[in-house]
């Protein structure tokens, strides 16, 4: 699942996934509130293998979204990777303190970006074991 308010970044991420031949289904939420609604609104829908979460978003920002998801029984253990432009120390610390599993700075360079997405897919979709 991809949570990002920037359409460009969403498209680029999907492009990078395709480029790396990662065929998993991708759900997109354009802000935190949408993500919370999608994940907690229907109890029967399957949970994503990993959530890629941006920080700077309208309505509900990434850190607030993270806190809500972590405080809810259903989404407490879903892997959440913060994927954001910011490399501010305060965001990094707050991210991990709120229960993020990983924190990755989006590279500007498309090759590096694609590589980052490839490794993310590799790790969280193939290597990682979920409870």
């Amino acid at each position: 699942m991809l949570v990002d308010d920037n359409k460009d970044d969403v498209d680029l991420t999907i492009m990078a996934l395709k480029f790396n031949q990662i065929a998993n289904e991708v759900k997109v939420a354009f802000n935190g509130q949408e993500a919370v609604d999608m994940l907690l609104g229907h109890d029967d829908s399957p949970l994503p293998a990993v959530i890629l979460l941006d920080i700077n978003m309208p309505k509900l920002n990434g850190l607030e979204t993270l806190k809500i998801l972590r405080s809810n029984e259903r989404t407490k253990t879903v892997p959440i990777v913060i994927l954001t432009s910011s490399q501010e120390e305060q965001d990094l610390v707050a991210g991990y303190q709120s229960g993020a599993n990983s924190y990755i700075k989006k590279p500007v360079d498309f090759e590096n970006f694609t590589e980052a997405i490839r490794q993310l897919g590799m790790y969280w979709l193939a290597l990682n074991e979920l409870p």
Partner: protein
Amino acid sequence: MLMQIKKLLNPLSIALLYAIFGSVWILYSDRWVANLSDDMEMLSQMQTYKGWFYIILTAIPLFLLIKAHQRFVLESAQLLKSTEKKYENLFLSNPYPICVVDPETLGFINTNKKFIQTFGYTIRDLKNQTIHHVFAKKDHPLLEKIIRSTLTTGDQNEPIIVKGEPKNDSVISIELMIYEIRFQGQITLLFQMRDVTAELLNRQQIRDLTVHLERTVEERTRQLSSVNEELESFTYSVSHDLRAPLRAIDGFSNAIAMDNKNQLTEESQEYFQRVRRASQRMSQLIDDMLRLSRITRASLTIKEVNLSKIASEVMTTLDVSKSSLVTIEKDIQVDADEGLMHILMSNLLSNAVKYSSKTDNAVIQFGKETQGEQIVYYVKDNGVGFNNSDSNKIFKPFQRLHTESEFVGMGIGLATAKRIVARHGGEIWAEAHSGEGASFYFTLNS
């Protein structure tokens, strides 16, 4: 000799001397005259002369004694008068206002010039007035209490501050001491005063100024912290928002170039590459700017740091050519922030390595020396150097003296170095000659 004569001049010794002399005269003078002649008539005449002689003999010392006594009395009187005059002057011309007051009626007995001057009343004005007349009504109870305690215990212990009311309706502040003294044979109260109006006013002004200053500092601090907050949110939004469009430019131009690989001319392909290089370079600039601002904002942890060790560590990470000679002075200890010192040494040494990379037998040195009373640390190389007139320019952010093709870089290293040194209360400067290498000096005062 004179003292001995004076000692003899007391009444008892005078009487004693006179008695001895008189007795001797009575006992022996008749016998002595009797031996001079047998003629009775002659003898009687001589007795008369003897009487006259005695009177003369005693009258002269008597005259001298009375004269000496008279002079003594006169001199004493004069001395007393001049002493009195001195005390009167001390009272009248005293620089502080003083008045003598009757303890029964509290009326004025005497006032000095300064008192008259301070309160503006004439002696006539005060003739039938009491001390209450020159002090503010609200201070009268305090005044009476102090007078009572002075009369019972002798002197008042500490000066009190009361309000004085001069003739011209103004109000002045008076520091007052009351003493009990004997004046012209009677017990009186001496009021010694000091006009402290100006002094109190000055003190108040200083207090006001201090308060004003504190307020100004507070306000400035508030302004500064709000500017700081704005700066924080600015860098935060730069960090977040400026990168995303660049990623889009880079990503989508790459996508166009890839998708249309066969339709695009070689030239167009190259243009897409340029778009991508430019966006990547801008991204690098943003990162550097943020790093620079982070150094200004970061809090310092000052402790003892071994700069030589840091320099050696930095050198192992740099690509130094085998022919280069690197000398690092041992055990240079400073009190500084370790993280920032690492960045500082890394920037200076990597510059030295970079700009001497095209020099055969490059020499890179790190050490310290004493200039005046200051310890100055230096990083020197014998590389390309620069024109000494540019030595101030190079510390400005994004200022470069070489083209990208000569030496790669963003022009941020020395600006960062300068900020790090400034945050440690030190200075950094450079000396160089084109083609003869560069020397960077810095001080640390933390």
